[in-house]
């Protein structure tokens, strides 16, 4: 079992080895005690190892299965409480029905919601990746106080609650907000209003996601060896060439993680698009909550949940692919 190769297990093995080297009768009872302790500890280790799995199964796996059954129209059993209160349900027999799925996917507005969500998480992740990489790499290649300050500022949103930030940004980018007031001073009316628009969602998601990305990329950049960078500089390479040809190829894994984690975070976000986003199209997170709570359609909400799940799985594939390429490259 993989768990037996952990540090605790190694310690136990060492204990057994010491005992085996000392076979005196006087120590035998002790040996039996240790053997008994080993068994207890081994059981404890297995139990501790099993707990996270059990936790995932109970609080993650079972709800997913129940949602899948609800989506397919199995309204009885554990889903009976939810379905007794829900509206517009489509019951299924046998394996189930795809009625709720086709109902949503035949709805043009829902397809627009999926497109909007995909655009927002791809654009946000790309922008976050570029910003985080530029900030951290620039500081590594051309250290300066200004860039260090920028890096520090980029981490601050981590300590501001998202709901507070969202309300603030909604006001900041509104028609009477700072940005539009600035535009009006310059003689341009209503040019910099981002509240109630997808652009606003992207900007706010970048603001929220940047701290984690900067921290992650900073760790990746710190792991770059000075020798490889210095060798390139000695050969006359400019900073941009060093970054593009030497540093970035070594940061592929970190870049993949930043992109994928940001994408998954944006995909499942609710507060930012709910407060800042447009009334239509909706991001899928908002759509799911509205469908479940406001429209009282738990079955359709389960379909939206599974759409998010599929998109997240695609991002997961990208992550796996990115990690594998790195290993092959080595």
């Amino acid at each position, binding site marked *: 079992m993989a768990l037996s190769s952990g540090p605790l297990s190694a310690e136990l093995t060492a204990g057994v080895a010491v005992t085996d080297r000392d076979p005196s009768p006087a120590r035998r009872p002790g040996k039996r005690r240790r053997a008994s302790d080993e068994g207890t500890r081994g059981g404890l280790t297995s139990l501790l190892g099993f707990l996270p799995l059990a936790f995932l199964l109970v609080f993650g796996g079972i709800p997913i299965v129940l949602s899948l059954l609800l989506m397919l129209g199995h309204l009885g059993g554990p889903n*009976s*409480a*939810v379905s*007794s*209160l829900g*509206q517009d349900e489509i019951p299924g027999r046998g394996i189930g029905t795809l009625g709720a799925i086709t109902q949503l996917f035949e*709805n043009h*507005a829902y397809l627009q919601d999926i497109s909007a969500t995909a655009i927002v998480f791809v654009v946000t992740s790309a922008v976050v990746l570029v910003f985080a990489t530029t900030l951290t790499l620039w500081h590594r290649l051309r250290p300066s106080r200004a860039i260090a300050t920028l890096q520090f500022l980029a981490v601050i949103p981590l300590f501001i609650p998202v709901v507070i930030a969202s309300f603030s940004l*909604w*006001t900041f980018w*509104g*028609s*009477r907000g700072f940005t539009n007031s600035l535009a009006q001073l310059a003689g341009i009316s209503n040019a910099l*209003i981002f*509240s*109630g*628009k997808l652009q606003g969602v992207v900007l706010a998601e970048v603001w929220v996601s940047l701290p984690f990305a900067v921290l992650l990329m900073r760790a990746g950049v710190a792991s770059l060896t000075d020798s490889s960078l210095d060798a390139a500089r000695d050969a006359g390479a400019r900073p941009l060439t060093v970054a593009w040809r030497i540093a970035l190829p070594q940061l592929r894994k970190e870049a993949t993680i930043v992109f994928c984690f940001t994408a998954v975070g944006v995909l499942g976000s609710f507060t930012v698009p*709910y*407060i800042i986003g*447009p*009334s*239509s199209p*909706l991001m899928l997170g908002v759509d799911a909550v*509205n*469908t*479940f*709570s*406001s*429209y*009282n*359609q738990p079955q359709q909400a389960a379909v939206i949940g599974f759409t998010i799940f599929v998109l997240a799985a695609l991002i997961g594939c990208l992550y796996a692919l990115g990690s594998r390429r790195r290993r092959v490259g080595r």
Partner: protein
Amino acid sequence: MVVKRRRLLVGAGAAVSCLTLSVGFGAGVSAAAGRTAHAKAHANPYPKSLHGGFAFYSGGDTNVEQLWQDVLIPSFNRAYPHIKINYVFSEHGTNDVTTLDRVAQAVKNHQSSGFALLESATNAVELAARQRLFIPVTTKAIPNSANVPSASMAVVKNDAVPYRGSKVVLAYNSATVKNPPKTLAQLLSWIKANPGKFAYCNPSGGGSGQYFIEDVLNQYLSKSAVNTLAFNHATSLEAGWSKGMAVLHSLNSDVYGNGTYPAGNTQVLTLLGSGAVQMAVVWSDQSTSALQDGQLPKSVKLTDITPAFAGSPVYLGVPKYTPKNQVRLVDAFLNFILSVPQQAKVVKRLAGFPAIKVSLMTATVKSEFTALGEAESLPYSAQVVSDMERVWQQDVP
């Protein structure tokens, strides 16, 4: 503030000939008694020696949390020092539906849900009442419930009891709007004549937007249809919404931000306060509080239009299969909350309507809110509202 509030406080409820007096609940009682000496007092069946505890789930905004935590529960604990209330709060009612599911499952299994009392920011309590998940309210168990207008009780088929209310009104900046609209038709004309200067919120996020939409939709429905939709999930009548939805769709380019619908009630107030819009539909209690706090300038005025926007009591329900000893404690609590002195505190703290007949309140308390009058229109029932929000989302933005 409350994100979504539904149902109504109908002024034309059954005539209540007596005033309930909660015995021994502070100085307010004597004042009320002096004012309505002719009224018959209901005896309080719950002695001060009652002891035990129960869990109370509450969904709402921070002002609701403060009302319970800072005002009503401490007052109750002074009257009943041996009853402990475990107050579980969910901001904006984000856990309303999951809590309702939990209660539904428990009732189905003939078990206690763990919560002895429920309040929701959404329509969860009304929905639960219609699904018969609550213990029916009787005047024997809660004598002060006799003072609640019968129409308010009819909405939930006597399976829950309101404890406060509010209604939606039109707010406008009197500095720029000299002649505010008096009717819905005039309001719609004003919106088209002043593009970008009017806002109503997304109905999924705020009841003020919901009631504005209902007012527009009801123009094209008969009175009997509106009345039916207030009490029944009559899906066949929902086809009559198409004309109203088309009118709302046509307003897209004329409302704030070319069809930007703020997520909730609070954001509408922010737009009004900042001058981004000159007119909006708002909750009477929220806007009155905002005017008192200075969040809205004094130039903002509140008014009714014809037909009036709906009003909305907020309900409390006791799930079936709650242990009997806890039900007794909860009934004592509800009876206390519905007493005149406590209702006066609700009015003062939230600038809202009392759940009991307005005529039973003191003149001072009445002056806090009666300038706008009581709500006169019936909002849609919980399931109809769910349908309306879905159709609006598809047809309007």
